């Protein structure tokens, strides 16, 4: 059967700071929490209308989004670590704390 996506929810993954790909080199492992899943059950009349109005070309050349996104509603606290050059860094808003469809 076609893969049915789970509703939007908070997932977590253990990664090293380097694997975050922000440019810091550190083997410290951090908990990376992210939002994943569909927002089918959060569609509103707005989305249906926007989809229809757009399909009638009443909106042209504009970046619009006619479906809710599964996104963080709040972020975890800052993350601090010692990099390979023995220098401390603190990075904010890396990991999601709460997810929702917006």
């Amino acid at each position, binding site marked *: *059967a*076609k*893969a*049915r996506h789970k*509703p939007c929810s908070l997932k977590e993954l253990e990664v090293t700071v380097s694997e975050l790909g922000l440019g810091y080199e550190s083997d410290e492992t951090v908990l990376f929490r992210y939002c994943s899943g569909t927002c*089918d*059950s*959060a*569609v*509103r*009349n707005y989305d*249906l209308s926007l*989809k*229809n109005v*757009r*399909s009638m070309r009443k909106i042209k*050349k*504009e*970046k*619009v*989004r*006619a*479906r809710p996104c599964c996104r963080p509603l709040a972020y975890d606290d800052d993350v601090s670590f010692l990099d390979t050059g023995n220098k401390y860094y603190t990075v904010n808003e890396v990991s999601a704390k709460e997810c929702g469809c917006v």
Partner: protein
Amino acid sequence: LYFPRREYHENVYLEQPGGTSLLQIHALKDSEDEEVYFWLCPQLHIPRAGAKDNLWFQISEKTGLLFLNKSLDREDFDTLFAGNWMSMPKLILQVYLTSRPFQGRECRESYTKALVKLSVVNATMPACGSLMPSQLCFADTDLSFHIKENKPPGTFHQLQRFALQQQCQNASISYTIIADEGLPFHYNEDITSIRVAQTLDREEREKYELIAKCTVREGSKETSTEVPLLVNVFDEDDMPPFLPNGTSTTDAVVEFSRKEGTVLAALMVYDADTTPIFPIESSRKKYTGIINSSDPWIKETFRAEHIFHEISFRPNGSQVRGTRHEYKLVLNKNISVTESRSFQLDVIVNDTEYQGPNKSLTLHFNVSVLPISIQFSNVTYHFTVNRNAANFSQIGKLCIDNCMRFYGVNVTYSLQTPNVSCYAVTIAQGQEGKFGILYVNNSAVLQRHDCKEIQYPVIAREERSKKEAYTLLTIVLDGSLIHNDDDCPDSCAVSKTRSECEECGGVGVLMGKCQWRQGSGKGITTNYSTCSPSIKTCPDGTCDAVEIKDEKICPQDCTRANIVGGHQKGVLGTGIRAGHGVCHCFPDISCYCEKDDIREPLCDDMC
């Protein structure tokens, strides 16, 4: 005694000499031998200023002629209307009628009274030349009168205007009455009075339309003026109740509907008199309908309900209002299924205000209360259930004889212990205790090979009489097990397409897979497309006794959540009665109805 009008109007000017006649008021008799005495309430009333002592106006006790007994001068005007900002000051006199001379009574609300509204012109009487001919003719443009039926003849109005006509002697003013042939009115040209010449009968005719024509001749010029003169005949309760087509008997059978409030039968009673709706309280008491029985059971079990409507009768061409009274025999409480008897029940209808003979008549209801048997027509009931049936799948209905026609009869269905320890099925009480719905409540048992055929003794018990009926329910399991993807949602309603729908099962499915209902019709339609556990029961516009147990079964009938897209909610505010395109739901979260014909890719970024 009564007045033919509720109100009279006339103008009063300053400095009109004492003794000036203002207005002739008439009274009509209720009986020939009555004496007529007019008298004025000692206070006059000024709108927005209240009551004041009446020093200026008098009425002739015998003739009813209202006159000025003291001239009203400027000073009087100022004291009466000090600071009164009305554009045309007015004072109101109350004229009363008695059949004995006036003995200094107070002006009571309850006495027969008419109002005289005098507009006080803040100037002396205008010169004749300045008056329009029509002003000389009529003080009142609303020449409408009421005359009671069955009362003696009498004069009810005088057309001439005294004060102005006394002033304008050189104008010759004459009146005529234009009317259809043969009307019961006479006009005395000399004193311009109009008489009702005979007793009137409202049930023959209740409205008369005449025209008063006034002709004013001044020198060579002649002007005529016409004003409608309307006579309404007031009703008196002088007609007895009667039966429209003579039927005073009807049958009233109590069988399947044994619920309090059930209307068993109705009979009509007519009355040529009017029955005013307003004020409702007094008019409702006018007609009574009492069950004539000494049997306490009858009095307790039945009641007579009465409603009435105005109708029109058409005696010889004219339209006359009458009343249709409807008497319904109604169950006053629920009746037991075992009750069985026949008897004649009489309702005595009484027109309380009618004084003549036959003021009441009797309606006869031939009542037969039939017993109801609590029984199953079949000795056994047989259902085949697929082993892939899910929980809450509805297998079928159990119903004793005529159960769907019952009202006020509460039957409870229960399954006893089965012959084998395979407890897979149970029963829910259907709507208003009529039938039982069989459904799977333990689908795991269906998959056990040792459970092939399950027999349940069934009991149907009528709550009030405790009467019971028995039958045997046989459930035969068949079908080979099929597997559903773990990814499948619990509820069929989540699926939005036929393929998604038919590849999965869900709560309430009968054969292991959901069923796709392909809708048709444009716009918002009751025949919307949707995925259902069983098209036979969902959606059917009813959130039934099984579906109500879990919104995942049939949100299309039961949801109370927000519905996005074009839709109409169900009658009781639950479910989706009609929807646009495909309706699918995330139970307890939201439902969607949308046309899925937009093929354009849902681009995330730029379109």
